[in-house]
């Protein structure tokens, strides 16, 4: 295999086949994928959740992960947020001519490992190579399907006044890491992306507490934007306690240096959970028993005071609006 990805590898001919068999099947292979049919055939039972996402993150490698692992985590998490167990994913790679083959191998290897850890099978894939400049190094699309475990499924429109709002851990880690790496900024303390598959934790949560009203992963736009989406869909107000928000000191430091707000930074391994107040203690027990939820805490309450708005109760006890992110805080974060 040559050192760089050439246009030949996307031609559909022998070079493509070699790339598929020597690289993609090596790391992603399973009984279904190995058959190399035009489509995957599989069975699912009951209601099915399905989600698709495209990944264009720049840089493609960052502390805590790379675009390959992120492409699995992002889609697996989206499916899991519907109270579903993700089962199968597909992947579509668009590769810029000239990408070092070693980079591609690291990415596919990370995708394979992430899929194994999440317990999903990659059952269909596609690779295209485009001329230099037609894409930025590599873009990946993944689509996932899974079996919905609870009825009704959690949904953004199901928050009710009186519900508690929980977050599974510290916020802003991924967004700041990606920005810091992209710009070559040297932070005093190391920050690392939180990119992770949350499905195992989420399945335990919804199986024990099926009355969870909303599950959402605060990715692009961050916690503030996701909460705004929920309050608008459910027509409730979210009162958020600034003091309760978990933000690592190094993220806070990086943000204050760059004039960013961690509430608007992307997360790739965290989720928001809105549920009846009576279930809070048990939910936190379940979350904290998992390493991915060890910093879980309650951050607010849904009320009927200002429907469709998120209100931040500041450390001083003042109140202010916490709006949606306008435009981009950062370009191409995931």
């Amino acid at each position, binding site marked *: 295999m040559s050192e760089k990805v050439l246009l030949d590898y996307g031609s559909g001919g022998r070079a493509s086949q070699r790339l598929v068999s020597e690289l993609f099947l090596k790391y992603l292979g399973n009984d279904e994928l190995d058959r190399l049919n035009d489509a995957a055939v599989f069975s699912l039972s009951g209601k099915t959740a399905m989600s698709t996402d495209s990944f264009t993150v720049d840089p493609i490698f960052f502390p805590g992960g790379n675009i390959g692992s992120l492409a699995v985590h992002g889609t697996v998490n989206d499916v899991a947020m519907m109270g579903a167990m993700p089962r199968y994913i597909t992947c579509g790679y668009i590769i810029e001519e000239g990408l070092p083959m070693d980079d591609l191998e690291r990415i596919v290897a990370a995708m394979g490992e992430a899929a194994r850890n999440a317990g999903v099978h990659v059952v269909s894939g596609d690779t295209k190579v485009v001329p230099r400049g037609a894409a930025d190094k590599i873009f990946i699309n993944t689509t996932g399907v899974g079996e919905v475990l609870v009825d009704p499924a959690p949904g953004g429109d199901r928050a009710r006044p009186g519900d508690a709002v929980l977050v599974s851990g510290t916020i802003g880690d991924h967004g700041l890491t990606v920005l810091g790496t992209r*710009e070559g*900024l040297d932070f*005093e*303390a190391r920050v690392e992306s939180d990119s992770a598959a949350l499905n195992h934790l989420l399945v335990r949560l919804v199986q024990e507490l099926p009355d969870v009203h909303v599950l959402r992963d605060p990715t692009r736009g961050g916690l503030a934007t996701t909460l705004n989406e929920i309050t608008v869909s459910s027509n409730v107000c979210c009162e958020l306690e*600034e003091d309760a928000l978990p933000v690592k*000191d*190094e993220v*806070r*430091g990086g943000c204050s240096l*760059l*004039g960013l707000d961690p509430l608007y930074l992307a997360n790739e391994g965290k989720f928001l959970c809105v549920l009846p107040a009576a279930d809070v203690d048990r939910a936190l027990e379940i979350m904290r028993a998992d390493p991915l939820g060890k910093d879980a805490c309650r951050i607010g309450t849904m009320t009927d005071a*200002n429907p469709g*708005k998120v*209100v*931040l*109760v*500041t*450390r*001083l*006890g*003042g*109140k*202010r*609006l916490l*709006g949606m992110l*306008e*435009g981009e805080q950062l370009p191409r974060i995931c």
Partner: protein
Amino acid sequence: MSFELLDRFHDPKLCRQLLDKLNASLDSEFRFMEVCGTHTVAIFQSGLRSLLPEKIIHLSGPGCPVCVTHESEVNAFLDLAGRDGVILATFGDLMRVPGEKGRNLKKAVADGARVKVVYSPFDTLKLARENPDNLVVFIGVGFETTAPTIAGTMKMAREQDIRNLRILCFHKTVPTALDTLLADQAITLDGFLLPGHVSAVIGVEPYRFIPATYGKSAVVTGFEPLDILQSLLKMVEWRNHGGAQVGNDYTRIVSDSGNRKAMDVMYEVFEPCDALWRGLGLIPGSGLEICDEWAGFDAKKEFGIVIEEGPALPGCKCGDILKGVLQPDQCPLFGKACTPANPVGPCMVSTEGSCAAYYKYKLD
């Protein structure tokens, strides 16, 4: 990194004590203006605004550099975007500032212009070195806070024999603008919160005229809730005792005489000039231009750029808002025709603009 020290300036108990004291000291309205966008945001973001006594009237002044960048200055840099052989370098704030016909730098990039967002003016040195066949033009917008680093960048460019760097200098100076504001009879004010970062460079001395000429108080202060409350209380107490003064409550950063070295660098490269301020118009001696000795760096000279007053934006009240005559939500366009997604005036564009802060943070 420890935030213990910084957190003390947020201490809810101490803030409550200061708020109680402030409340007890007020026998009539006290109208204060902060002259710095960072203060505007700090007052809203900390929730302080919702806690201030009713008699404290909070006005946001012309302290956001993006907001006071004149329409014709905006059009000038938009004209440069997309010119053959030009790479514009800018702080991120300017990317969405609207010019005539709805133009902005983001749209220019989509049309193929080469625009690079930098975090520091020094980043332009590398950019210029890496693009020897292009002219790198840095949009120099800001007050005395940023001017010295740009002057330093020019000096380093000269030392390193970098010849393809130009500065489009739209710098403005704060004290002169405050003089103009205070001279305006339409504006009623009791005191200023002065921008701490600007004073880190120029110190406190240039503001002595505020009590001397106009009988108003002014305090250089930091950006944490306790800084702001302490300075407000101080100004109210001065008024209660029948006097106006200038104070420095940001002594952990600011010395009364300022940073001599930074000022020397700044005035080695720049000299005062008349400047057009958005909403305030022409203020003599309130700008900085590149002096003859450094004229080779001057993008205005290179491209023959002349900044002139043009027709105002119809319906936009940014001028009155920057002067504290109107509150942002009193503008007929606020939240309707003018939002952060589609800003009409500059106060809605910058994250530190007073309209953007109202829109983003104010709870009705």
